[in-house]
């Protein structure tokens, strides 16, 4: 069996369900490992910042969360598109599993951004380009989730979601550009979240480790949710019935 064919066998929901179940504990392990390491470097090793004091340590959460929110949207759109183009149910289910986690990271990025903004710039919210784009990204996620949840027919939901996700993905650069434009017009000196303290190598290390932790976390949660979606959608199949009865101890 060629590698390509073997890859496609995981397109079967039953196989994905089993595979995801085996890998999830390892992802949790990785999450904790990277998080502990990242937090150690970020809080114990990295020094205080001259201008921002200790509040800057929020970036070890804020930046990875923001990256994940944007990355997950693209990944979600990718799998949704694959599901639409190849009528691959599993890909569509994966896209649906990713959406809530992406939204969660967006919320986290916004929340940590606000809590970073208050001590640094004096306001809970500054309409800078990146935070505003992040807010709009949250709306894109919520729109996708609302749309797929509102459609009862799974196939129509998958396809409509894929179209919306793709339209959203194409619009993300447009939206970001227009928000940047808007921001520079209305504020002389741009208060920017990218004006982070100059990165000491320890800070970079901590951010990298925390990003890896968020990655592993995303895998773990998305796989769990994907398994839930698979069982929900494939309820009528034999393998799910067997699995369910076995779980009930019947």
């Amino acid at each position: 069996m060629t590698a390509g064919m073997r890859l496609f066998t995981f397109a079967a929901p039953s196989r994905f369900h089993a595979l995801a179940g085996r890998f999830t504990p390892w992802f949790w392990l990785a999450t904790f490992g990277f998080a502990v390491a990242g937090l150690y470097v970020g809080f114990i090793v990295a020094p205080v910042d001259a201008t921002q004091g200790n509040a800057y340590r929020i970036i070890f959460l804020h930046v990875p969360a923001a990256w994940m929110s944007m990355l997950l949207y693209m990944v979600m759109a990718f799998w949704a598109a694959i599901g639409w183009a190849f009528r691959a149910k599993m890909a569509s289910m994966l896209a649906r599993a990713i959406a809530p986690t992406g939204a969660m990271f967006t919320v986290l990025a916004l929340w940590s951004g606000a809590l970073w903004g208050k001590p640094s710039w004096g306001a809970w919210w500054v309409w800078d380009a990146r935070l505003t784009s992040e807010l709009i990204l949250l709306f894109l996620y919520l729109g996708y989730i609302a749309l797929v949840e509102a459609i009862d027919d799974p196939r129509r939901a998958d396809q409509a979601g894929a179209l919306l996700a793709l339209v959203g993905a194409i619009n993300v650069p447009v939206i970001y550009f227009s928000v940047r434009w808007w921001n520079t017009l209305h504020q002389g000196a741009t208060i920017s979240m990218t004006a982070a303290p100059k990165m000491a190598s320890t800070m970079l290390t901590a951010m990298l480790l925390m990003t890896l932790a968020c990655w592993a976390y995303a895998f773990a949660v998305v796989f769990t949710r994907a398994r839930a979606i698979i069982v929900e959608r494939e309820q009528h199949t034999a393998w799910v019935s067997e699995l369910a009865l076995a779980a009930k101890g019947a």
Partner: protein
Amino acid sequence: MRALFLAVLLRDLRLAARRRIDALLPLVFFVVAISLFPLGVGPEPQTLRHIAPGVVWVCALLATMLSVQHLYAGDQADGSLEQLLLAPQPAVTVAAAKCVAHWLVNGWPLIVAAPLVGVLFDLSGPALRSLVIGLLLGTPVLSLLGGLGAALTLGLRSGGMLLILIVLPLAMPALIFGAGAVSAVESGESAAGHYSLLGALLIATLLGAPLATAAALRISTE
């Protein structure tokens, strides 16, 4: 293809002419919603002049979202949508025709009403001109995006709010450039950059939205 386009377009225009009240309701909403802002913000002319571009554009956006909800619902209810999609011509033709009809019926009243409302906000002559130009370029974009939203949410219970939620983020660039143009003119600068961006946005949306809407129509009617 042109025959189908014209047929759909004229049919929609004739239907709108028969139900003039329905066609004018979004316009009434537009004016009423705009009038809320001075009541909420206070009558100080300086403030009103400052917020006018944003207020007019946001209300135009919302009015468009409200009027676009029924774009395909009527056709689906009486079965004509299914017939249209069965035609040998690509569904893009139908989508494009519906959007043009919507813009002619719902977009133009907004463009005409905007300077009148702008006067209420004490906008200067050049600013009013900028408002109209911006809306001329922007309302087609809103109609196109709205059409896509309407096709995606066709027949869904929560259709209205859902449509607004999914289309508003996509419409934000138009809002930013359109309102920004008026603000620029108000502060004495040139709005040429804004117009170019709006124009580019219009072209891109003209190329992409009908295709996406056609796909959405097929998805929603299968």
